[in-house]
Structures are given as C-alpha cells and as structure tokens.
C-alpha cells in the first residue's frame, strides 16, 4: 500500500520533527529550571534582607559587620534573645518593627516564633491564618528554606527549641513564573512549527529534481522521447544526476531515431518488390492466360522475390553489425587468408564478366571478427567486378606496414563522380539503379563495409573520378590490434 508517510520527504520530516522537539523541550526545561532557581534565590535574598532589617531594628546596639554583601551571614542572634526582645517590642504599639510586618499587599513579609511543639509563641499581625508548625523531634537544629503554599518561608532553629519563621508572600512571583513557563512553551512551539515548515520546504525543494526525473522518465516511457529533465543549473547531486540522465536520454533518442530511420528505409525498399508481386499476381489471376504469359509473370515475381531476399539478408547482416561491439567474436586471424578465400568464391563471377584480378597480398595478422571481415572483402570485390562494364582489371593490394594494415580494391571501371563519394556509403543509396536493382544488389553493401570497418576501429575511403576507375581503401590501425579502413573506387 502506498502511504504518503512512506515517502522520503515524510521520513525526513518525522525524523527532524522529533529531533527538534526533543532539543526544544530540553532547552525550554533548562531555561525554566534556571530561571526558577534564579527567581527563588532572589526571593530568598529578599527574605534575608528583610531578616537583616528585622534584626537590625531589634538589636540596634549590635553592630552588624561588613557591607550589605556580607549581610547574608550575620552572626545569627540567639532565638531566645529574639523572642525576649520581641515580647518587649510587643508591648510597644508604635513599634516600627511591628508596623513593618503588618501589610497584606502582594509580596508582604511576616514572621512567627514558635516553640518546639509548634505552638505559636508570637507572630506578626499579618501572619497567614491557619498556618500550623509541626512539632519536631529534638536535635533537628538546622535552618531550612521552603515553600508553604504560595509562601516562601525561612526557618531558624535555636537550641532551646525556639523557632523563628520568616516568610514572604510569593504568589506574584509564582504567577510570574507560570506565565514565563507558558510563554517559553509557546515560543518553543512556534520555533518548532517554523522549523517544520522550513524543513518541509527545503526537503521539497531538494527532492524536486527527483520528481522532475520521474515525471520525465514516465513521459519517455510513454513514448515522448523529446522530453528532458529541466534542471536549475546549480551543481547539487540531484542536478548532476539529472544531467547524466538527460545525456542518457539523448543517446537513447538518437539510437531510437537511427533505428526508426533504418526500419523506415528497410520497409521502403521492401515495398516496391512487394508491390510487384501483388500487382502481377492480381493481374494474372483476372483471367486465363497463355502459358507463355504465365511464365513471364512468374519470372517477374521470382525476381521481385529474389530482390526481397537480398534485401532482407543485407538488413540482417547490417543489423548484426550495428549491435556488435563486443570483443567476443574477435579472434586472431590473417586478412591475407580472408582475401584469398573471398577470391576463391568470387573467381567465377570475375570469369563470367571477363575480369582479370591482380593480387599483391602481404601477410596481415590481426585480431578481428573474421566473418565480418569476409563480408567486407566480398562486398568490395563484388562491387568492383559487377559495376564494371566487363573486360577490365581489378587490383587487390594488402599492405602490412606501420602503423596500419591497408587493404585496397582498385578497378579501371567508369569511376564515380566525387559529388557522390559521401552518399555512396549511405544505406540504400544506389548510383546506377537500372543495373544494380535488377542485379540483386540491396544498396546496403557499402554501408556494411563502412560499419564493419568502424566496428574494428578502422576507416574507409574512396578515391575516384569519372573515367579514372575507383579505389576503395580500408585501413585497420595496428595500435589497437583491431582495425581501421579506407575505401576507394
């Protein structure tokens, strides 16, 4: 099943959404924690300051040492003494100290003194109602600081069991801290969302070439070979891939185009003999004919059929050569032997046309596809013989020199106008249609020669002029041990 969450984009999105969430949560928690500690320290400082003021007021004779910075650690007065003095103070209704501990506005301070059992001996007027101090076991005599509801309280214990409580209303501060927590959370959530959106966009952008590539590939698969991937021109990895693929598509399209032209040409060439056979049989079947007429008609059909045979064979040979660039069929062979074998088979053709063949063949070992080279030699020699009006000479020269092996087929025939020298190697191009078509030529021979030469890294060239004969030269370079060819009539 195809879920959207299976896509790379979603995987990435989920991954960094989780990462970002963890990071932001950790960060927010730390910030909140630190700010809370800081804020409580401030509170404690305020309470300590207030205590100092209190003690200062209560013990005006006691010189508190040092500047305010050291006020955190005044020599703690004896709680018993504190209690005694406070009691005295209590008698004084205008006492400054008692006045200072009477407000109930937010952030007010209070104090209370209790004995070990928790019963309150004395408290400020604003001491919150309902506060109970637990009784304590003897021996616990350290000072503590803690929250009691929305109040922050400091406890001092004295050895005699008297406990002094200083407290402060911290509701404002707590509210403030809550608000801060909310805003930090909102801020983190905001960053998280922005991060998600940005990440979604960046991944989408980075993956766009992939979408382009797949869309283009789909279009090409549907047969639209002209489609190419549009790429932004920057050098990201995916754009490089797009370039490589575009190049591949170009190659593919040109291969397809060559194939299309080839089949187009082939079917075009096959259409004419096919038309001949169909029209001729249709005509003959219309009514009864004299035996001579049938004979003539059968001959026409046979010729058309033979021409189709030659064409199909030529096409198959060519198609095989087109697809052949593997080294599998390459074997060490000697071009000299191949030429000699070819002459054995084509000798009767030369004799028929009263042609003399002169040879000058050096030994020419090379690594090549011997069957293909035989086709090459056969085609060149046969062309030289059959395009000659007859009674002439064909000269075959095979030279084994550095850096190339050179095979030449020269004749003293009518020659070829230089204007046609390039065209003659094209498929189905025939200079002399009236003769060659009747004579069982496919128009593929020289295309084959060229193809085979090129398959062996060879070159193929033609030197000829009307009335001066033709010389086809094929050259196989020795450096690769394979071949090169040049052809001349």
């Amino acid at each position, binding site marked *: 099943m195809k879920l959207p969450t299976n896509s790379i984009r979603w995987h990435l999105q989920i991954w960094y959404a989780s990462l970002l969430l963890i990071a932001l949560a950790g960060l927010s928690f730390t910030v909140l924690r630190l700010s809370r500690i800081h804020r409580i320290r401030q509170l404690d400082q305020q309470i300590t300051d207030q205590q100092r003021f209190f003690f200062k007021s209560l013990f005006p004779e006691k010189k508190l040492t040092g500047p305010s910075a050291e006020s955190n650690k005044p020599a703690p007065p004896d709680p018993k003494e504190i209690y005694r003095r406070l009691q005295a103070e209590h008698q004084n209704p205008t006492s400054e100290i008692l006045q200072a501990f009477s407000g109930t506005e937010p952030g007010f301070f209070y104090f209370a003194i209790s004995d070990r059992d928790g019963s309150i001996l004395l408290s400020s007027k604003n001491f919150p109602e309902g506060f109970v101090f637990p009784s304590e076991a003897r021996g616990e005599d350290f000072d503590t600081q803690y929250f009691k509801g929305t109040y922050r309280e400091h406890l001092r214990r004295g050895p005699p069991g008297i406990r002094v409580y200083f407290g402060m209303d911290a509701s404002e501060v707590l509210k403030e801290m809550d608000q801060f927590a909310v805003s930090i959370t909102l801020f983190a959530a905001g960053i998280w969302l922005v991060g998600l959106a940005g990440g979604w966009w960046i991944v989408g952008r980075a993956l766009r070439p992939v979408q382009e590539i797949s869309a283009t590939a789909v279009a090409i698969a549907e047969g639209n070979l002209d489609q190419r991937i549009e790429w932004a021109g920057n050098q990201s990895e995916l754009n490089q891939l797009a370039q490589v693929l575009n190049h591949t598509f170009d190659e593919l399209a040109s291969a397809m185009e060559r194939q299309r032209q080839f089949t187009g040409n082939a079917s075009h060439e096959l*259409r004419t003999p096919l038309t*001949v056979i169909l029209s001729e049989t249709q005509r003959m079947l219309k009514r009864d004919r004299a035996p001579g007429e049938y004979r003539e008609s059968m001959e026409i059909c046979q010729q058309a059929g033979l021409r189709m045979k030659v064409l199909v064979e030529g096409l198959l040979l060519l198609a095989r050569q087109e697809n052949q660039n593997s080294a599998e069929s390459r074997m060490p062979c000697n071009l000299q032997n191949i030429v000699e074998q070819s002459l054995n088979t084509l000798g009767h053709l030369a004799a028929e046309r009263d042609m003399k063949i002169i040879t000058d063949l050096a030994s020419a070992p090379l690594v090549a596809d011997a069957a293909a080279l035989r086709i090459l030699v056969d085609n060149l020699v046969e062309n030289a013989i059959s395009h000659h009006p007859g009674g002439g000479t064909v000269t075959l020269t095979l030279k084994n020199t550095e850096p190339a092996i050179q095979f030449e087929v020269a004749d003293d025939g009518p020659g070829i106008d230089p204007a046609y020298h390039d065209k003659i190697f094209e498929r189905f191009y025939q200079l002399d249609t009236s003769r060659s078509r009747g004579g069982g030529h496919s128009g593929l021979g020289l295309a084959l020669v060229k193809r085979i030469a090129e398959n062996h890294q060879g070159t193929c060239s033609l030197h000829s002029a009307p009335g001066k004969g033709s010389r086809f030269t094929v050259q196989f370079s020795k450096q690769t041990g394979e071949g090169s060819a040049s052809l001349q009539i």
Partner: protein
Amino acid sequence: MRILVVEDDELLRRTLVATFRDEGFAVDDAEDGEEGLYKLTEGIYDAAVLDVMMPELDGWQVLEQARPKVDTPVLMLTAKDTVPDRIKGLNLGADDYLIKPFDADELVARIRALVRRASGQSQSILNLHEVRLNTSMRKVEKAGTEVELTPREYSLLEYLALHRGEVVSRTLLYERLFDENDDSLSNLLDVHVSNLRKKLGKDLIQTRRGHGYFVE
C-alpha cells in the same frame, strides 16, 4: 485512354504497364524522371502515374517542372505514408497518391476517376441513343442487353462518347488510344471501328471522310 507510367524500377514498371494494357489503356512508360518529364510535357496523356522515389529527378521534381506546361492528372506512387508527404504532394499539384504496396485494381480505378473528372464528366453513365456506357464498370449495353467489347474497342467507343458531337480525327485517336508500341500505320483503327459497328449497329459511329469519326 492513353496514360504514362514513370517508374524507375524495371519490374514494377513492367507490371504496371501490363496491368493498364489489360484494362484497355494505351500505355507509355518512362524509366527515369527526365524521360518522364519529357513525355509528360508532350501533353498527349489523359493521366500519368509518377513514382516519387527516383534517382536524379524524383517524382516531385518532375511534377513541379511539368505543372506550368500541362495539367494532365497525375497520381503519385509513394512508399512514404507520412502526412507531410501527402501535403507536399497535394501542394505541388498531384491529383491523387497511392502508397506502396497498393491494390492494382484500386490504381486503375483511381486513374479512371481522374480521367473522368478531368474531362468534366462526373457521372459514370453515358447514353448514346439505345447504347448505354457504364464507364466505371466498363460495360456497354444495347437496348438493355450487355454487349461484349474488347478493351480497345471499349476505349475507342468511350473516347468518342466523351467527345460526343465533335469530329475526332484519326490522328488524335491514334494519339489517344494507341501507345508507342502500336503500329500507327496499320489499319487497326479501321478494324476496331468496323467491329464496333458490327456489334452496336452501323449508324452509331459515323465517318466524316477526310476528317475522322464522330457519334451523335
């Protein structure tokens, strides 16, 4: 009817010529574009069949060069069946085209249709008194009964019928109904005329001495 077949492929040319002759056409052939152009511009053909793919002067070039001089209907034979090719042919003034491999009967029928259209005769039935010609079926009836005619006899009758009321000279008839291979000095024409008179009545084809023949 006399037509020209321009085809560089010898086998196909032979087959086409034989097919048209079998159907009663007078057929001349040309084996390349140059010869075809020369013959076509003589202007003596009722229609021409032109192969597109020929060396040197191809079918399009022949048509292009012949068009200002003659308006002979031309049917192009092509191996390419792409739309741009058809448009090109129609733009250059080809009247019809056929794609190889084609049906020989269709080719003949199309050539007949081209000739009929060119002569301004849109219907295929011609009535000459009690003789009735069906030009699409190439059949002749006299008073409702079918009469067997040789293709050559039929062509002669059809030509005269299409030029009904005009005196058609013997030269013109030789030019239009016989091809290069027929011996124009023979009395072939007289033989055909006398056969037609025997089969369809002696008054159908009348002779204007020294000028030619005509039908009313």
